[in-house]
């Protein structure tokens, strides 16, 4: 910085970056865009809120039928319908956001190429919109939870922590995917397959608990590598059934927590690193 006379101060222009323009600008834009998107879904159409609930509910109804009437798994798990609904809503957030995030940067091409814009806002707005959506859906889950007859527990206070963990994982994955998609267009197809695998590979339809699902036994070690596995175990322990094993117990002790934690941290670090590296050049690559 220096003064060129007349009290005019020049500052360096450093070019585009993930966070160009500072934190305040980042948060203001992020807030505005997410809220705009959110309003669009909820107030834009007459049945806005209904639609965003119908999808998880319909999936829930189908799965509930399959797993309580056909496979009989549900009847051995305490509070199975509530667990299923909560899990579907949580994984639904992850699926929907990451799927939208893949194309988010490319889809907002005109903004990226024609305005000065903190690049990080774009995928993060997708995440935040999803988060607002999740909040609405969790209200519906809470009503169902009480109506089903689950007694309120003090551990429900941990829900924000659980959502925060999922939020971090979802954000990092979104950053990674959105910047990779700019270069590699088959990321979208690959991700849709991976997401499906995660849906069945994570304890969403079934509890990660060999005392209830003994057939899990031989695969316990492999499945526990997935960071979503201990996550959903802990969700069950804190929210649905306090007698269910905690995350640590479910994966088989602290040593087995190392792999999923390491993967979690790796995804976060790689996601942020890849995105900040790609951000300055993304307008040219599009």
């Amino acid at each position, binding site marked *: 910085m220096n003064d*060129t*006379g*007349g*009290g*005019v*101060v*020049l*500052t*360096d*222009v*450093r*070019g*585009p970056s993930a966070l*160009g*323009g500072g934190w*305040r*600008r980042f948060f*203001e*834009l992020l*807030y*505005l*865009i997410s809220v*705009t998107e959110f*309003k*669009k879904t909820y107030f*834009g159409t007459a049945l806005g809120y209904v639609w965003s609930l119908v999808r998880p509910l319909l999936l829930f109804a189908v799965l509930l039928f399959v797993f309580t009437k056909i496979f009989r798994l549900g009847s051995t798990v305490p509070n199975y319908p509530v667990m299923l609904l909560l899990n579907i809503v949580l994984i639904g957030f992850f699926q929907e956001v990451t799927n939208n995030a893949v194309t988010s940067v490319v889809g907002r091409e*005109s*903004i*990226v*190429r*024609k*305005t*000065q*814009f903190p690049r990080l806002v774009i995928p993060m707005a997708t995440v935040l919109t999803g988060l607002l959506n999740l909040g609405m859906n969790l209200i519906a889950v809470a009503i169902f939870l009480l109506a089903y007859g689950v007694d309120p527990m003090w551990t429900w206070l941990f829900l924000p922590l659980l959502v925060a963990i999922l939020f971090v994982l979802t954000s990092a994955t979104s950053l990674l995917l959105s910047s990779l998609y700019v*270069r*590699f*267009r*088959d*990321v979208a197809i*690959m991700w849709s397959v991976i997401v499906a695998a995660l849906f069945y590979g994570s304890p969403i339809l079934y509890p990660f608990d060999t005392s209830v699902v003994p057939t899990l036994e031989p695969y316990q070690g492999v499945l526990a590598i997935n960071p979503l596995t201990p996550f959903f175990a802990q969700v069950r322990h804190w929210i649905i059934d306090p007698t269910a094993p905690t995350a640590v117990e479910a994966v088989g002790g602290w040593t087995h927590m190392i792999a999923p934690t390491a993967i979690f941290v790796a995804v976060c670090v790689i996601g942020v690193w890849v995105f900040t590296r790609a951000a*300055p*050049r993304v*307008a*040219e690559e599009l």
Partner: protein
Amino acid sequence: MATPSSTDTATEAPARRERAAGPVDGPVVIEARGIDKTFRIPSHRIDSFKERIVRPFARVEYRELRALRDVSFEVRQGEFFGIVGRNGSGKSTLLKILASIYRADAGTIRMVGRPAPFIELGVGFNPDVSARENIVLNGVMMGLSQREARRRVDAVLDFAELGEFADLKLKNYSSGMMVRLAFSVMLQSDAEILLIDEVLAVGDAAFQQKCKDVFHEMRDAGRTIVLVTHDMTAVESFCHRALLLHDGEIVHIGDPEQVQRQYLRLNFAGGDGGAAAKGGVVPDVHARLVDSWLENESERAVNVELGKPIRFGAVFEALRDLERPTFGFHCYNEDGLEMFVFHRTLLLEEGQPDRLAEGQRARISGTVENPLMPGRYNLKCWVARRRNPGDLALHGIDVLDFVVFGTAPPRGLVLVEADVDAAPERPEGR
């Protein structure tokens, strides 16, 4: 809507032109030093993981495109600064670097505050939300705080004359309303520096006139503006100074008139000018265009109605003695296709010499039949000496830029009267 203002500007234009000349003595607000930018364009782009995995060692070959080399300049406060050049000269890249959309490979840029870039009108407008919300969103994108952006909403709506549609979703706006809104958003931006890229290129004649009025206003209000354009009349009428880029390098920087001359030289020396290449020298020092206009019911106009004759006039001044001058008029459509050509020599009275003396003016005016379909057209004039098309005094200068408006079936290039009948033939013989 723009009729009164358009006649206004047409008559005031020369006065404003004078005002444009001369440097501005404010403090430096943009300082660019040695800007370099190279785009790496892969000759075979690997854009899937599959390809990466199938051929992990395939070397990606890049073609390097040096968009800018060692570009340095300064812009002072209150200056209207033009960046001009042909397509692909790097002018838009330079603007995007100034706007922090691209990152320069080398060099430094220093600037006062955050500039507001207008690469295109209405970038980031969301069709699904109301105008009000879009104005706030756009304001924040352009660097305002949310509170400032909200405070600005009414002013923007007032200027756009869209107050009653404030809560209408943008997707229900007509394109005209949308453009008005976008423009108003730009004007109401209180950024220290505005970076504008050829917004004039869109819209109808009335809109373009409005743009021009707005630019004059902003310039007279002392705002610092960097305008990228290839419209030389814009450069001449707005800019205090201009920068001419060619293949990423600065050819000239300074006086707009000088820049305009150099630009024409670049455009017509390249071979596609033909005549200029034959002539060898670029003799646009021999004559100049003093004034040109389009008439409509004796008033100056900016456009012509479909099928109505084009009434126009132009005044040229000889800067040297011109022997037996020929004025060649060539009309081009938007795609650069030559639509028609006509030539005129001086109409002389008995005993008058067929020449223009230094400082003498020639006035050309009249009516041209108009078969042109609706669209944008451009009338250029070449002035040759001694009846020799290779001996040019003035090169393809823009005389008119006009729009033919009206509705016509969008087929063909021209609309012709056809006195043709179709009738069934009687079978003969039987």
